[in-house]
């Protein structure tokens, strides 16, 4: 199959959605002539014009509000927040408005909007440009949270998110934008809330999100040489969460770890652990459930410090090995 980068896959999804439905439009900072801070919308201005690729002032709450209002009034906006960090400026509109309007109005309105934003560290952008805040949104009823880890998923999940009638927080990863993978040309949808087992194995279940999926794959490639087989499970949609495949996997392997880049404390890993620990998989557990996640510090600037702050391939290898060998 044809290969695209993650950024190209997103762009193709956006293009196809906008071509198919005149209600779909994009709004955000520098998404027009600049093509977006990470180039995702490059070329779309020329194709769709400034009325549908809307460059905004630096007003993140305004962008979020514009999406909520446009969605309430018949459009299907796709907003872009330049770095996930800046979503901190939009929390009121997302959490108290977008997420709640439908329920608060007795189910009578809907807010079909997607808000795209790149999270994660690894580019030396330091503490205010490297956040991984997805679990905040997971904690909010009324939102959906999507986090693709491959170009294929990026396009399919984006199209499904745009089709969805609810506010979707769509979390991309800076380091994934240039990664390549097979992507079909025609539009396709990956249903939201469909967890995928991306690699089968019998010794340890690794639940990984976003960039950690490929790091887990690399770790698995190494460990297999030692006879340790990881089963890698990618939720892809964090909320609503399809946890059945996770539980199934743990029943099979008896050992589980969660890997994400976000800070461990208060993070999504806790949710996964809790799902496993209160499920029927509990009886199959042969070892404590482990989390491997970001350290409890802001992301530092210096390259080595930055690298040491979030899980790397070698960390996954070490942790999975211990778990497989019964060292906990």
């Amino acid at each position, binding site marked *: 199959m044809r290969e695209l980068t993650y950024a190209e896959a997103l762009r193709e999804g956006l293009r196809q959605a906008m071509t198919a439905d005149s209600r779909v439009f994009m709004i955000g900072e520098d998404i027009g002539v600049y093509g977006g801070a990470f180039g995702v919308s490059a070329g779309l201005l020329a194709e769709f014009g400034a009325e549908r690729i809307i460059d905004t*002032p630096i007003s993140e*709450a305004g962008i979020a*509000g514009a999406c909520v209002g*446009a969605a309430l009034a018949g459009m299907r906006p796709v907003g872009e927040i330049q770095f996930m960090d800046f979503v901190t400026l939009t929390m009121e*509109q997302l959490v108290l408005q977008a997420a709640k309007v439908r329920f*608060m109005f*007795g189910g009578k309105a*809907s807010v079909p909007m997607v808000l795209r934003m790149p999270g994660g560290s690894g580019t030396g952008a330091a503490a205010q440009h490297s956040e991984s805040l997805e679990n905040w949104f997971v904690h909010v009823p009324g939102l*959906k949270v999507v986090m693709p880890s491959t170009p294929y998923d990026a396009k399919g999940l984006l199209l499904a998110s745009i089709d969805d009638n609810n506010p979707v927080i769509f979390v991309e990863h800076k380091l994934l934008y240039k990664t390549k993978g097979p992507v079909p040309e025609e539009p396709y949808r990956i249903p939201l809330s469909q967890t995928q087992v991306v690699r089968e194995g019998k010794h340890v279940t690794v639940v990984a999100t976003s960039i950690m999926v490929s790091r887990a794959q690399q770790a698995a490639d190494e460990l297999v040489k030692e006879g340790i087989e990881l089963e890698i499970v990618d939720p892809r949609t964090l909320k609503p969460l399809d946890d059945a495949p996770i539980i199934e996997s743990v029943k099979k392997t008896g050992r589980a770890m969660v890997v994400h880049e976000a800070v461990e404390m208060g993070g999504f890993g806790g949710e996964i652990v809790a799902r496993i620990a209160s499920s029927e998989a509990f009886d199959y557990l042969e070892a404590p459930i482990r989390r491997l996640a970001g350290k409890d510090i802001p992301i530092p600037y210096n390259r080595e410090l930055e690298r040491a702050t979030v899980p790397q391939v070698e960390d996954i290898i070490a942790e999975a090995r211990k778990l497989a060998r019964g060292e906990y």
Partner: protein
Amino acid sequence: MTTNSTLQPELIQRFHNVIEELGPEQLKQMLQDMHTIRAFEERAEQLYSLGKVHGTMHLSIGQEATAVGAANALQDGDYLLNHHRGHGHCLAWGSDVNRMMAEFTGKETGFCRGRGGSMHIADVDANNLGANGIVAGGVPISTGVGLSIKMRKTSQVCMVIFGDGAANEGALHEALNMASIWDLPVIFLCENNQYAMSMPMPKAFNIEKISDRAAGYGIPGETVDGNEVLAVYEAVKKAADRARRGEGPSLIESVTYRYKGHSKSDKQAYRTRDEVNDWMENRDPIKRFGALLTTAGITSEAEATGMRDVALGIIDRSVEFSDNSPTPDVAGLMEGVYA
């Protein structure tokens, strides 16, 4: 600024065009609506003190002219977003008073199936996108609605109503600017009732008129007497016409006063009883508009006074409706979160 009837001929003169434009039926309906709003609020307060209502509420008694003047300046298909002190806006918009009362009392027949309550009454089918519990919460949304209108190329407008207190939220600034640079059909209506909870407007602003902020966004700003229903009508109508012509948003400040405390539990230590009395006695919007319509010969005094009884009847029936309505079934608790 008084109800002194010697002033009425002057006002009739001043609003001559507007009176013509609206015609006697609509003018009478406006006065009726003001009465109905007041009756709704009074009953709301009573229900609250009887313990029939859980939660809080914010009464707009004294502010009826802003709601009615503004709503009447718009058309079917236009959008409304308003705020916590929103019963009046919703009634003036023409939304069903029975379903409002049912929502206020948490019933399944309420506009929001009892999930929203006083601060969240919406009538989505009538493009009334709801009151908001968050100060200025509806304001950024209004730019999105305006954007949708512009993209869909209809002649709708969106009116967002917020308080003086809301004018100091950052969201307002972003929304005004975005609406301005894109010429969105949004009417920003600031209902300045002089206080934000306990904060008097002059302590929260270093300017005299909130409408002076409009210049910073390159849009028209106007301050009107918010207790003069026709003045509000006139300003909103002008803004709506401008918006429909594609010329962009306006900021209107409607100066009025709330007679009641901020919410259920307000000791009102921040103002004097005299101040309140002065407004009630000398600038009451219902008295004023009643006097204007009778002086102009549009209603008889009896008719004008009778409207109060009509209002009470409407509200009685709404309470009956709500009393007879089922409470939401806990079995349906999880419904309506996702579409």
